[in-house]
């Protein structure tokens, strides 16, 4: 749910990066953080364990610029990907305006992707959202690795609806901004229609 503030002439939107454990959600945010001008970003917050696994969420506020005199801000969140952190994942989806699903393209993570996508749908429904009605994009991450499932197969199972999709290597940054741009654009188009979110 976007927040339009006429008093400060600002609009705030929330984007959540979802996906199985170790698929590269935090790495996506870290790359965005590194490559954004200092005046356009706030502090990146990571609530992580000692072994740098996300415990609750990562948070990165971005200011993109103005549209029609309104400052446009996006708040980027990641969820903890590990299966047993489901209670935390649900909380982070509250008030979401757009979702990025980061898939791990490696063959051995094929089932984990499907499980995580199902989990996303269930958790969204609990909050009263439908994934099909939300701005949603998919990123096939880790394309640099040798043991990737072919894109066609990934697409068939993860993206039957044909939402915007991107191949990526979040560590080098390939595809990271393309993914972010695409979801931000969908959110703004949704705002234009006057019915962001559910």
């Amino acid at each position, binding site marked *: 749910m976007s927040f339009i503030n006429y008093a400060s002439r600002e*609009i705030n939107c929330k984007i959540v990066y979802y996906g199985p454990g170790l698929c590269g959600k935090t790495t996506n945010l870290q790359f965005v953080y590194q490559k954004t001008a200092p005046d356009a970003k706030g502090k990146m917050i990571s609530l992580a364990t000692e072994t740098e696994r996300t415990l609750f969420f990562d948070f990165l506020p971005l200011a993109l610029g103005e549209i029609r005199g309104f400052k446009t801000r996006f*708040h980027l969140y990641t969820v903890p990907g590990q299966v047993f952190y489901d209670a935390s994942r649900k909380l982070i989806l509250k008030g979401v305006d757009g979702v990025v699903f980061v898939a791990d393209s490696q063959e051995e993570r094929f089932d984990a992707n499907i499980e995580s996508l199902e989990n996303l749908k269930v958790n969204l429904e609990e909050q009263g959202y439908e994934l099909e009605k939300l701005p949603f994009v998919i990123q096939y991450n880790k394309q640099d690795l040798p043991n990737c499932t072919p894109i066609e197969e990934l697409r068939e199972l993860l993206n039957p609806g044909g939402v915007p999709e991107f191949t990526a290597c979040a560590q080098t940054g390939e595809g990271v901004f393309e993914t972010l741009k695409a979801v931000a654009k969908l959110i703004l188009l949704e705002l234009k229609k*006057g019915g962001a979110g559910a």
Partner: protein
Amino acid sequence: MLGPQQSSFVMYDEEFQRISAVIDKLLRESNAKVIFLVDKNGQLIAGCGETEHLDTTSLASLTAGNIAATGGLAKLIGEKEFSILFHEGEKDNIHISIVAQRVILVVIFDHRSSLGLVRLRVKKASDELATIFEDLSEKATEMEKTGNVDSPFAEITDDDIDNLFS
């Protein structure tokens, strides 16, 4: 107003002024350092006091995360929510409360105030804030009903959006 069925949470000038007046008064009457108001999704609504050295965006997001996590805990033990959280530090303390089950009121204070005083003043301010958010909610419903949703984004073009990323 803040349920998922609503597309956007809209803040208008008039209500913003009223909210600012209430939290300014609360700041004075409770001898607090900083006060801010956050929605449950982590968006900063308003703030006052010594905010210049504070990362209010991060504070807002973490506060909402904190409230969401304690809310989850509450549900697990059969409570609806924990409406007040208090964190005590060596110098500064944070008092967090939920106003009208919708927004989060955060008061940061030091030795110049006390927990008792903050609790007392917060209670009164919460009632006033609840009224304002009620009005805001009615306004939003009214706007939606009459179809008079004055979205500043209704007229944006693809070029406007592309320019953001140039």
